[in-house]
C-alpha cells in the first residue's frame, strides 16, 4: 500500500490545494493532514468528525509557590531561559519550558510539579472522498513530531481496516521536526514548488532531506507561467538531480475561486488545470506503487505494519 506525501519546503506553493485535488482523483485513499500546526485541508474537505481524542505529549514544569524557597537553582540550571524571577517569586514560562525535567529533579525543596502537557487534539473523520485523519495543535504548543507519527499510525490502521489502497498526506512547510517525522516509511514525496528564487532554494533543501531518508521524489512547478525561464531551470535541475519532473501547472485564479467555495479545483472545473492535475496524479500513483512493491525491505523501517 503506497504512502504518498505532498511537501514543498516553502509555504504557500499550493500543497494543500493540490492534495485536496489528488484526494478527489484518488477516490479511495485514506487522507491525512500532517500540517498539525496550521492545517488547512479540512477547509476544503469539510470532514465530519467521528472520533475526537486529546493529544498529550511530554510534560511541563510548574513551580509550587508555597513550597519554593527561592534558592534560584532552577533558574541557574535551566538551559532554555524558562525560569524568571519577577517580584512575585520564581515562575516557569510554559512557552519556553522544554519539558526536560532538570529543574524538577534538582529542586532541593521538591517544589516543582511536572504534569502532562495537553498539546492538542486529533480526529478521525469522514469526507466526501473517504476517511481522513487530522489534528490541531493548540496555539503555541510544541510542534510535535510525535503527533505526526501518531496520525500516520492511525492512517495505516484505518487503511487496513477499511481496505483502502493508498495513504495520501498533506505535509508541513519547512524541513524540521514535523516534516522529518512525516517522511519515515513514505514511499513517494511530491515536491510542490514555484518558479521563484525562494521556491527553487527551498525545493533543493527539501529534496536533499528526501535523499537523506532515501525517499523517491517528483516535482510539480505551480504557477509555472509566472517565470517560464525559472521553470525551465527547475526542469533541468530535476534531470540532473534524478527526480522526475511531473508537471508545470499554470497560475489559475480557479484555485482561489474553488477554495472560497470549499471545493477542490478538480471539482470546480473539469478542464485546463484539472486535466494536468489528473495526468500528474496518475503518474504519481504509478511511481508510488512501484516504490511500495519494489524495495520496501531496504528502506526505513515502518513503525507499524
Amino acid at each position, binding site marked *: 500500500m503506497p504512502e504518498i506525501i505532498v511537501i514543498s*519546503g516553502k509555504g504557500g506553493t499550493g500543497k494543500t490545494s493540490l492534495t485536496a485535488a489528488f484526494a478527489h482523483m484518488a477516490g479511495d485513499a485514506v487522507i491525512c493532514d500532517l500540517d498539525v*500546526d*496550521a492545517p488547512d485541508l479540512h477547509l476544503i474537505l469539510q470532514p465530519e468528525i467521528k472520533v475526537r481524542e486529546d493529544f498529550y505529549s511530554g*510534560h511541563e514544569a510548574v513551580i509550587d509557590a508555597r513550597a519554593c524557597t527561592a534558592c534560584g537553582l532552577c533558574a541557574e540550571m535551566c538551559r532554555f531561559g524558562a525560569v524568571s524571577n519577577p517580584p512575585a517569586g520564581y515562575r516557569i514560562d510554559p512557552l519556553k519550558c522544554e519539558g526536560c525535567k*532538570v529543574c524538577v529533579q534538582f529542586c532541593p525543596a521538591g517544589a516543582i510539579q511536572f504534569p502532562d502537557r495537553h498539546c492538542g487534539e486529533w480526529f478521525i473523520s469522514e469526507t466526501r472522498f473517504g476517511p481522513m485523519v487530522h489534528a490541531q495543535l493548540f496555539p503555541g504548543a510544541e*510542534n510535535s513530531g510525535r503527533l505526526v507519527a501518531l496520525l500516520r499510525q492511525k492512517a495505516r490502521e484505518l487503511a487496513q481496516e477499511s481496505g483502502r489502497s493508498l495513504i495520501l498526506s498533506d505535509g508541513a512547510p519547512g524541513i*524540521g521536526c514535523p516534516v522529518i517525522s512525516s517522511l519515515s516509511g513514505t514511499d513517494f514525496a511530491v515536491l510542490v514548488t514555484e518558479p521563484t528564487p525562494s521556491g527553487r532554494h527551498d525545493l533543493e533543501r527539501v529534496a536533499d532531506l528526501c535523499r537523506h531518508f532515501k525517499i523517491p521524489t517528483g516535482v510539480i512547478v505551480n504557477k509555472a507561467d509566472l*517565470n517560464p525561464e525559472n521553470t525551465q531551470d527547475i526542469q533541468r535541475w530535476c534531470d540532473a538531480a534524478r527526480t522526475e519532473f511531473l508537471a508545470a501547472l499554470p497560475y489559475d485564479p480557479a484555485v482561489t475561486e474553488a477554495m472560497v467555495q*470549499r471545493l477542490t479545483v478538480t471539482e470546480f472545473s473539469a478542464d485546463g488545470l484539472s486535466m494536468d492535475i489528473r495526468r500528474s496524479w496518475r503518474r504519481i500513483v504509478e511511481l508510488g506503487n512501484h516504490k511500495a512493491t519494489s524495495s520496501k525491505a531496504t528502506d526505513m523501517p515502518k513503525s507499524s505494519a
Partner: protein
Amino acid sequence: MIVAVASGKGGTGKTTVAASLAWVWDRPVAAVDLDVEEPNLHLFLKPDIIGRETAVMEVPVADESKCTYCRACADLCQFKAISVLGSVLLTFPEMCHGCGGCLAVCPEKALSPGSRELGEVAWGTAAGRIGFFMGRLRVGEAMSPPLMRAVIAKIAQSPHATAGDVIIDAPPGTSCPAINAVLPSDLILLVTEPTPFGFHDFQLAHAAFAPLGKPMAAVINRAGLGDHSVQDFCRSQQLPILTEIPFDRRLAEAYSKGQVLADALPNMRTVFEELMGSLRGWAETSWQRKVAAHA
C-alpha cells in the same frame, strides 16, 4: 524597535514585506532571517556575507569505562536520547534537546559535553546599509529553536543590537519555531492573504501570539483575491490593518526575479515607506496605552 514579520500560513509574503521594509527603513536597521529551516531573505536582499559560524548544541558523550549502569541518566532523559540496556550505555545525539540533565545527574561523571551541529549562522551587510543575519538549519536536523537562539545571540553581540532597529523574518506556523522567532520582538506584524486558508491560519497565529502581550498589526497581501473575512476579523479584534498590497501579477513576476518590491516598483516604495510610518505610529500608541494602563 524590534519588528517580527510573521504569519500562520506560509507563502503569504513575510519575506517580501521584511525585505522591502528593511530596504526603505530610514534609520540604522538589521534584517534577520529566523526562518532557519527555509531561509529566503538573502535571496532578495543579496547581502555581502562577511562572517559565518557553525552553530552547535551540547550533547552527552559517554565514557563507558566509568559507567555503573545505574540508569539515572536514562530515567531523567525525557527525549529518549540516552538509554541503558543491561550493561550497555547508548546515546542518541539526534534526539537530544541539550538540557544538560544527564551530565548533572550522573554520579560517576561518566558523561561529558560533546556537540551536535545545528547549522550555520551567517552575517553581513545588504545594499551597503542594512545589517544582515541569518541561520541555515543543517538538512536532517529536526530542531530549529536552538539555532534561532544562536542567531539572536549573534545579533546581541553586534552593534546593531544597540544602535538600530531590527526586522525579523519569522518562520510560518504558530508553534514553537514561530513563537521563538517573535519572542524577542516589540511588535508583531502579521502578513496574510484574504483567502480561506490565509484567514484560517491568521486566526491561529493571532491566538498563538496574543498571550505574549505584544502589540500586533496586520498587512494584507494579494488584496482583492478571495473574500473579506480577514478584514472583518481584524475590525472585530481591533487589530489595525496597516496596509493592503493589491493582488497584481507584476508584483508576483518581480518577486519571481528575486527583486525587492520597494526597489523595483516606485509605487511599492511609497507603500512600504507609509508602512514604516504607520508601524512606528502603532508602536508609539501601543506603548503609550501600556504606560497609561500601568499608571
